[in-house]
């Protein structure tokens, strides 16, 4: 009886895990923090598609930008790249460090629009 329960339980857990990880591949609900060594906070909530719909952002380059000579290119976007591919942990010159790239991009727009979270724990929810 005990072994049966155990097998059933591990099967159930396995299925749930498989389904949820499949979900998270389709629908981004958080911003991955793997690029940071030794992350100190929970990853920030960010339901990609629902967020952008609610915020009414049509231009992907609002976040996924491309710069040339310090100027943002109007009609190019970089959604095929992670932010961390261009923004390293230190930052250099006009290019903000990775943490600041995220914070400036996210919080900056929320402050400008007076909508959306601005305090640490509203994004890094425990």
């Amino acid at each position, binding site marked *: 009886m005990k072994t049966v329960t155990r097998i059933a339980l591990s099967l159930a857990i396995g299925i749930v895990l498989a389904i949820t990880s499949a979900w998270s591949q389709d629908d981004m609900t958080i911003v991955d923090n793997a690029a940071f060594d030794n992350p*100190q906070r929970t990853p920030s909530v960010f339901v990609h598609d629902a967020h952008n719909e609610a915020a009414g952002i049509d231009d992907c380059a609002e976040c996924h930008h491309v710069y040339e000579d310090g100027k943002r290119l109007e009609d190019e976007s970089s959604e095929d790249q992670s932010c961390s591919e261009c923004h390293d942990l230190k930052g250099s010159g006009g290019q903000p460090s990775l*943490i*600041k790239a995220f914070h400036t991009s996210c919080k900056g727009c929320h402050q400008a629009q007076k909508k959306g979270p601005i*305090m*640490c*724990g*509203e994004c890094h929810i*425990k």
Partner: protein
Amino acid sequence: MHTFYNFVSGPLAWVAFILFFGGSIYRIASMLKLVAEKERFIFSYMSWRYSLRSILHWIIPFATVNWRRQPVLTVVTFTFHLCLLATPIFLLSHVVLWDEAFNVSWWTLPDAVADVMTIIVILGAVYFLVRRVTQPEVKFVTSASDFVILTIVAAPFITGFLAYHQWLSYPLMMCLHVLAGDILLAAMPFTRLSHMLFSPFTRAYMGSEFGKVRHARDW
């Protein structure tokens, strides 16, 4: 809540920091001016050697007779003051905000370590509170302002701790925390918390008088 947060972490924080730095300079300058006017002779026996010797002894735990006489108080006082000063300066959240606001950043404590240091400050404050209420010789010299000062010091740590763990209402706790921090900064030069500014001068004076005039130690 966001409007209030932006106010306490923006304009009000500016006011608090200006009062803190401006007030500190003002208090030290007027103290030196007063000495120069009233007791100018003190300068004649101030000595770097005896000053630093005294300060050095008093900032090392158990290096003075008084520290050795009260071992528990000594341990609590030293850890309390160390955590009190180091936690807000090297806190990741604070440095993140400095970086975003002024493009300056420095080494930070891991959040888990800062959290323990915060608990130490809160427990230290509780210890001082209990001591004030229960020890007759301390109670004797205690006035209402001592409890106010203790509250002003503990408040940013209690609210910061609750905010960090997101216990109770997070946005409310965050606003209260920043407000409490602003109050502490502004109050430091103008309350007895100014011992932070004056204790090196007091020690230098005592050290010089004992060393140069009385030829004795002051520790």
